[in-house]
């Protein structure tokens, strides 16, 4: 007998049982689907597909009633933390509140029901959206032009590296190395490899920033460029950025800006003005695309003028108008020396539309406030918690702050990981743990600008309580209030069960 789809015992509201998989809820012969009346006689696969191509049996999916489908996924949703439930201070992830108006924009039929290969004349609204977003992003980044195709930050990074490469080749060069700081996000080195470069890591200094001396030592004319995020992944502003950029430029390298931390500097300082040549922007972080449990995002890449010709294509462009009073018209154009496509179509278009709406609602004034409040919140927490956790780099931070639980760990045996689990029982999603790698027992807190003063206080108090529990050795069991207790991650890798069918 299959499981009962109407039993809510897995909903934290009324129980703590495991939710059956949809396959366990399945019963042959049940169905949810309804298709429109087509008016066709009922030809089956036999008449439609040559025998050698026919599937012997239909794909065995779950067979559930609509009622069980709804019960199942609604209960699953109750087993999922989210920004809409509470603060989500994951450092580097910028889990801010996402205005619902952006959902409404993305749901508009006039945008969402458009085929990506529709002729440009039938998709003028979309082309206008893309060109306006490109313009706004370029203004925010201090860049000349952008591609909106990359589907996430990492895709933007790789695109940027291929731009470096194309630029190199156009110069007749074949540089081999790209420099990244040891604090860099893991996508940076991974993208460097995929871009066909070797990674040269440069140490951070005791202030948590790029060691300019060490940098100079690895710079030579084999260096295609350097990837940096500023503020960096420690939440610190690289004050020597001009010196760094100059040094890289001197050896003929390009500066790449990892825009995952742009939230901190909107309207304050622009990557282009810091000397960067290529910038990717994580729209799903800064521009309030809800993160969807791991995407979709968007990672547009903006570049300085000398790189515009290499951008992926086609790009939406505004066409010359026939007359001054004619409405604007838009078309597609591929840059002269384009590296080619980096997405099957035009990028994550509905995410792009959301980002434009976010920018429009906030405007230049609102975006500046975003940065100010994000930095204010992080600094307040840094100062407030300095007595509770270690602050490895104790100076004003930008939009996030990295603490270390190492002293607590040493004293009590409770690691950053344990502190994180303890915080769950306090009603908060934990900060990022174990990143950046250069800080022991890192707890990386990014409150974002949308959390209130009261929430910051409550979060600080919760962390203080958790550390106190650590001192009393009470964290080993945490979390205790969640539908499942601490999950055995090692076992998952050791006894791999990647599908329901692998259980047997």
């Amino acid at each position: 007998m299959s499981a009962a789809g109407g039993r809510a015992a897995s909903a934290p509201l009324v129980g703590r049982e495991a939710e059956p998989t949809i396959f366990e809820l399945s019963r042959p012969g049940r169905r949810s689907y309804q298709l429109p009346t087509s008016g066709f006689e009922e030809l089956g696969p036999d008449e439609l597909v040559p025998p050698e191509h026919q599937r012997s049996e239909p794909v065995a999916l779950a067979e559930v009633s609509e009622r069980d489908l709804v019960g199942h996924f609604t209960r699953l949703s109750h087993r999922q933390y989210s920004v809409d439930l509470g603060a989500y201070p994951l450092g580097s992830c910028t889990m801010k509140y996402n205005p619902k108006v952006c959902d409404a924009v993305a749901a508009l039929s006039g945008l969402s029901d458009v085929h990506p290969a529709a002729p440009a004349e039938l998709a003028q609204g979309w082309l206008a959206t893309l060109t306006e977003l490109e313009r706004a992003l370029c203004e925010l980044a201090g860049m000349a032009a952008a591609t909106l195709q990359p589907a996430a930050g990492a895709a933007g990074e790789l695109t940027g590296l291929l731009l470096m490469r194309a630029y190199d080749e156009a110069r007749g060069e074949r540089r081999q190395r790209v420099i990244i700081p040891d604090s860099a996000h893991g996508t940076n080195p991974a993208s460097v490899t995929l871009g066909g470069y070797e990674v040269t890591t440069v140490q951070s200094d005791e202030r948590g920033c790029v060691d300019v001396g060490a940098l100079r030592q690895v710079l030579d004319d084999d260096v295609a460029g350097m990837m940096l995020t500023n503020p960096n992944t420690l939440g610190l502003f690289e004050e020597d950025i001009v010196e760094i950029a100059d040094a890289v430029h001197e050896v003929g390298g390009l500066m790449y800006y990892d825009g995952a931390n742009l939230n901190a500097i909107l309207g304050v300082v622009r990557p282009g003005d810091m000397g960067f040549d290529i910038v990717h922007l994580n729209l799903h972080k800064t521009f309030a695309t809800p993160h969807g449990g791991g995407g979709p995002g968007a990672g547009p890449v903006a570049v300085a003028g000398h790189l515009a010709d290499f951008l992926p294509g086609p790009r939406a462009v505004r066409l010359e108008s026939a007359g001054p009073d004619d409405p604007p018209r838009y078309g597609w154009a591929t840059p002269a020396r384009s590296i080619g496509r980096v997405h099957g179509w035009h990028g994550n278009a509905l995410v792009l539309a959301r980002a434009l709406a976010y920018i429009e609602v906030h405007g230049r004034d609102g975006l500046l406030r975003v940065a100010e409040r994000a930095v204010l919140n992080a600094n307040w927490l840094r100062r407030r918690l300095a007595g509770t956790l270690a602050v490895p780099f104790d100076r004003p931070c930008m939009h996030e702050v990295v603490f270390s639980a190492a002293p607590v760990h040493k004293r009590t045996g409770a690691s950053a990981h344990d502190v994180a689990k303890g915080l769950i029982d306090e009603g908060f999603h934990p900060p990022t743990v174990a990143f950046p790698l250069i800080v022991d027992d890192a707890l990386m807190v990014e409150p974002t600008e949308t959390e209130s003063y009261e929430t910051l206080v409550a979060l600080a108090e919760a962390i203080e309580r958790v550390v106190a529990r650590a001192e009393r050795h009470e964290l080993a069991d945490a979390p205790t209030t969640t539908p499942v207790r601490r999950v055995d991650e090692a076992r998952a890798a050791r006894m791999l069960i990647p599908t329901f069918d692998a259980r047997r």
Partner: protein
Amino acid sequence: MPDYLPHTDEDVAAMLEFLGLATLDELFAAVPAALRLNRELALDTGSPEPDVLARARARANRAAELICFAGAGAYDHEVPPVVRQLASRSEFVTAYTPYQPEVAQGGLQAIFEFQTMVSRLFGLPIANASLYDGASALVEAVNLAVGATGRHRVLVSAGVHPNWRAVLATFAAGTGHQLVEVPLTEGRSDWSTADSEEAGAVVVGYPNYLGCLEDLGAARAAADARGALLAVAADPVAAGILKSPGEWGADVAVGEGQPFGAPLGFGGPYLGLFACSSAHVRRLPGRLVGETVDADGTRAYVTTLRAREQDIRREKATSNVCTNQTLIALTAAVQLGWLGTAGLAEVATRCARGAQHCRAGLLALDGVEPLTGTTPTVREFALGLRVPAAVVQARLAEEGFLAGVALDQLVGEDGDGSVGAEEAPNALLVSVTERRTRTEIDRFVAAFDKALR
């Protein structure tokens, strides 16, 4: 000055005081003065939500109102209210990647179910938690094959979607793969044209982008002969009635998951599907959810084999993928849960039924020729027209139809191994989904006839 920030003036003052600062600007003291923007951004000031919504509405597109006969990897499938509602629950929408499994069982379990569904669909035991889109899944498949075989040469059928091939080519500039295009004859890959050197991967569509059923036996043989893995770019809807890539012997299968619940959305966000044989699990790109237990022995889920991933393996990672298309994968799990065994088969059958009816109708018209000979097609088909495809599209738009995809838009005026230079401007790819009724198709054919004159 409405916005989403909770800070009252008193909050700001109190917080600044706590920090020993006099102004918000001092928060940015670390930024060298010379770098500061020191002007306002050249953007409008903020607009209230109703104004922004009105502006977005004004950007509505005519194409959205047309009855859709366009496909080429992006299809106008039925997405019922129940799927939209479940997939837009804010817990799913506003969560992050599940770094804390104790409070992310909902998303994790949904993705575990998604992986199982994709695995069954493609007939391969391993499926990951999503990639960006079909094109990027194909790039990762080739990377995996090259990594597994150590061979950089890759045979790519010209029947693979031209945009996907373009993306492959772009990224091959970084990885150094050598891509060899294998042309089509009557809509099928002609492996005999490729030299017999060793290769890392053989890549073929099923059905290919022109809608034709490739001989995957021949593709498998072509791969074996060259010591290559076989990577199949499969249409996941057609897979509902076709022998699975796994059954055909594919090592990797990828696909564009948009048809499972994602709107056309002008091309994104879509969903890269990726499945492979067990041999390659440690080379798998992207996230993988596995089942395990919690401290009490209760069943639980967690992302696993994380040692492949960029945040741990850094430059040695199997891929650079981090943020992905989780919500679209979850949507697909809901949509496939809604369709079920019978529903998916029925959708695939209906698409084929409608496409056959439409194809017969159009081929009966004066000035329409098949572009792929007599090779069997399933849900879409390519035609050569008497007049440029763009002209037919424009005329049919007037009649309320999106007539299909003009192939020169995909392959360029000069064509490629799938469509020749002479054919390209007049070639149209027509697709039919289960949403198209017989009446609509018949009206479309009639309007098409008019448009050809």
